[in-house]
């Protein structure tokens, strides 16, 4: 018995120039904020951009973007609705606001299903908001999407860095491209993270400061792009060739 879905994924993603998995060993480091805002920022610069929320256990990008009342169209697959300029796909279209108590095997199956039936069309960028850790979703991205690159997020904390170190070590040993590392929610000028990342021979893309006003902008993309956080990320997206190239 062969699972036919695995043979169509490459084709579904064929017309996407760059696939960016926003990932971390840890939760709460800002993956969802960065994935959403990066997608918005690239879209506002004139690129065709998709955003895929793969954190099925705790999807967040719909809250950050204030997504409401849209639903994919069914046409030779499913076509993601356009939300604030982004082709946007999330499990919330199907689970609504109910809990999704999924084990790893279910998460893996649901990911494969989504990849097999979603018609993204031509995109410059597909940004994927990953769940934390090195579990089913991360292993499936590595296994199923050959042209993926990982944008790794950490905070300045030793606790976060230790988990990020493990993720980077794994990706490195598997020769999976790491686009670079962003240090989010910086509160001091410490070089701890930067030094450690560079000593692992990974590109350190830069830091984003802790933004006390960020919370007020959640749900409002225009406001989000105007925050200090949004502008820092916009700067990184424009000035770090690793992200766009």
């Amino acid at each position, binding site marked *: *018995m*062969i*699972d*036919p*879905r695995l*043979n*169509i994924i490459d*084709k*579904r993603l064929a017309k996407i120039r760059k696939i960016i998995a926003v990932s971390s060993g840890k939760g709460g480091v800002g993956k969802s904020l960065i994935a959403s805002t990066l997608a918005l920022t690239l879209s506002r610069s004139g690129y065709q951009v998709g955003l895929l929320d793969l954190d099925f256990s705790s999807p967040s990008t719909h809250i950050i973007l204030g997504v409401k009342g849209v639903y994919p169209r*069914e*046409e*030779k*697959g*499913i076509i993601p609705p356009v939300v604030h300029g982004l082709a946007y796909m999330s*499990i919330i*279209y*199907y*689970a*609504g606001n*109910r*809990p*999704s*108590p*999924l*084990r790893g095997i*279910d*998460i893996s*199956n*649901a990911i494969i*299903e*989504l990849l*097999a*039936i979603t*018609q993204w069309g031509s995109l410059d960028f597909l940004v994927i908001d990953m769940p934390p850790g090195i579990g089913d979703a991360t292993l499936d991205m590595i296994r199923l999407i050959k042209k993926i690159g990982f944008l790794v997020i950490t905070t300045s904390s030793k606790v976060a860095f230790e988990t990020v170190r493990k993720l980077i070590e794994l990706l490195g040993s598997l020769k999976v491209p790491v686009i670079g590392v962003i240090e989010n929610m910086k509160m001091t000028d410490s070089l701890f993270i930067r030094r450690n990342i560079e000593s692992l021979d990974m590109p350190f893309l830069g830091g984003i400061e802790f933004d006390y006003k960020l919370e007020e902008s959640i749900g409002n993309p225009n406001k989000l792009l105007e925050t200090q956080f949004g502008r820092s990320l916009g700067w990184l997206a424009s000035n770090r060739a690793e992200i766009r190239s």
Partner: protein
Amino acid sequence: MHEWALAEAVVSTILKLAEEEGLKDVVGVKIKIGELQQIDREIFEFALSQFQSSSLRNAKFNFETVKAKFKCRVCSHQWNFEAENLEEDVSEAIHFIPEIAHSYMRCPKCESPDFEILAGRGVWLESITG
């Protein structure tokens, strides 16, 4: 109509398998269709016919529907799928992503959402003959 996307996956897989096995002409294809996903058979068969390829000209497709069965991981109770009991939008959500069942269904004996889909999930290519 997302049956089309699944049909395309099936045809790609048949062609890949035929090449691997050195079959020039595929004459028989066995496909299993899980009940849970409630594939519209007519649309699915029509979509399959649209992806014609010379090696599939003479292929006869055989379909088997596999009943959906669940087993609770908490109390071990097993039960079958009953589409009639579901609201239409729930049924539609499961049509696209069967795992969504975990957000809407519970074990009828102990109420747990922690159950295994034992059978009846997805579309499978069972075999091809040439």
